């Protein structure tokens, strides 16, 4: 486990040395503050539009950070020729993959913490309430979804040639799942065989990332998600995360590293 934590620690240090997070965080703050300064019929209590914009920026920023940070992990090690010396140490290939995953996931968690603290402060400044449990549920679901994405990206970085192609393909896939994933079964019903069966199979096979998008519940102050379903969603995420990580370990085990 120490080897895994050591690799993860290096990844986290890399994230806070890079400027990606700071730029996205400052841009989010600036856009939200500009939007908050807009006068809408002299009513200072209007807040939901602001929450929506802020959460949208948080989601976009977190996706960008998760995918771009993870996509360059293994290719960068290979380009810098540090992969072989790293594996020459008492470190297995699976430990390296799990360490990279853990580092990226924890780094995403830290950035989410900053983003959600800002979001909480922004909405509290207008709503004068702090629904901590709702925010906890939203942030945790968001973080676990990022876990799936990090694992997917790590697998992609071993399959695709360059970090850029990996990032682009993943942005398209993740965007597709978030926008139409929930309705893919309805789309399948309008198609002819055998495309219908293929689309229907895709519907059941893909990780339904849209389950973790509870922004509407937060924006419109809906009650808490029942804890049973919340826990099941986390289990669902852990399942997919394990599948992609295992896939990444298996692919990396057979991959030439020089």
């Amino acid at each position, binding site marked *: 486990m120490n080897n895994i934590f050591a690799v993860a620690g290096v990844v986290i240090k890399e994230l806070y040395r890079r400027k990606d997070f700071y730029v996205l965080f400052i841009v989010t703050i600036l856009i939200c503050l500009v939007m908050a300064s*807009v006068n*809408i*019929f*002299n*009513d200072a*209590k*209007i*807040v*939901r*539009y602001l929450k929506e914009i802020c959460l949208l920026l948080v989601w976009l920023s977190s996706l960008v950070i998760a995918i771009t940070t993870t996509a360059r992990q293994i290719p960068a090690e290979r380009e810098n020729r540090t992969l072989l010396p790293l594996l020459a140490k008492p470190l297995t290939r699976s430990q390296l993959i799990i360490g990279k995953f853990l580092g990226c996931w924890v780094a995403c968690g830290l950035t989410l913490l900053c983003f959600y603290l800002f979001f909480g402060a922004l909405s509290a400044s207008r709503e004068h309430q702090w629904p901590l449990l709702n925010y906890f549920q939203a942030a945790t*679901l968001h973080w676990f979804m990022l876990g799936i994405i990090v694992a997917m990206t790590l697998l992609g970085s071993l399959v695709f040639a360059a970090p850029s192609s990996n990032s682009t393909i993943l942005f398209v896939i993740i965007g597709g799942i978030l926008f139409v994933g*929930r*309705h893919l*079964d*309805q*789309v399948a019903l309008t198609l002819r065989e055998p495309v219908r069966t293929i689309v229907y199979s895709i*519907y*059941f096979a893909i990780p*339904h990332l*849209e*389950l*973790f*998008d*509870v922004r*509407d*519940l937060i*924006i*419109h*102050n*809906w*009650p808490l*998600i*029942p804890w049973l*379903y919340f826990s*099941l*969603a986390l289990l669902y995420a852990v399942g997919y995360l394990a599948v992609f990580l295992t896939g990444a370990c298996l692919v990396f085990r057979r991959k030439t590293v020089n």
Partner: protein
Amino acid sequence: MNSPRTFFLLLVALLVSCFGLAAHLEPQFQAWPGSRAKGDIFNVVLGDSRRLFANQFYVKADEYYHSGYYPTMFDDNAAFQTTHMAADTGAVNDKNHGDEHGFLGPTRNWIDAFGRHFFPDRHTHLDAGGPDDDLSGSDNVREILPWLKLSADLDPDNVQTYTVTAYWLRERMNNAAEADAVLHEGLRNCPDSYDILFELGRLYYESYHDPNRARNVWELGVRKWQKIYPTLDPEAQKDNRLIMEQLATHLAKLEEDAGNLPRAVEWFQAAQKVSLTPTLIQDQINRLKFKLGQELNPVLKPLY
């Protein structure tokens, strides 16, 4: 080798010529009919496509009115043909049918059933308290206003945006001054709109308690309607009958409150001509005629 002074003078000459050229071209550019710099920022950036975005934001306001419970393009949206926030103002032809509570239908599979716990899954209206069903929170309807304002900025010719905004500002926010400003802005952009005049009359009558201004505005609305109605196609005529009915019944109510019963009967009769429920209006006419008869007859005293 040139001296720095030469470079400096060249730079100054360049700046002067730039300034002169800009000063020469600017008035020509302003006078040019194809200039896009005159309009607002949305007009410059989006052109005519801004109307598309305006409609999107108008629907977004209705989504907020439902606290996020809203059909997507994949769901059955028969019950959302007319936005509910507009239908609830009472001044719009409601074309909705079907089940507004269960547009999601029965669960299709385990993923669908499980997923319904993670987004709003109950039909509520913000003016009725939203997800909390707390009627004291009906002023939360304010949350639809930013999207309506944005929609009005993008498409200043959409009359419904002004009337809906003004209605909710007046009705739930008790902000008659802002509602007044919105309606006057609407009138500046759409001077022939009888819908805006109707809403303005309601503002004068119900919020400012000024029947004279309300009467003037509503009568102007009726005149505009009478002028425009014959030019509309049959489908649009069908849609525009409701607003005439509303104008006429409100004028009838105003005249009745003012004690001018014969005029009230006339307005009810005008409303009856365009109403989908003429028998209900006939009941009102009969009631007024009876009242009128009572006033004209001498008071009968019992003999014993």
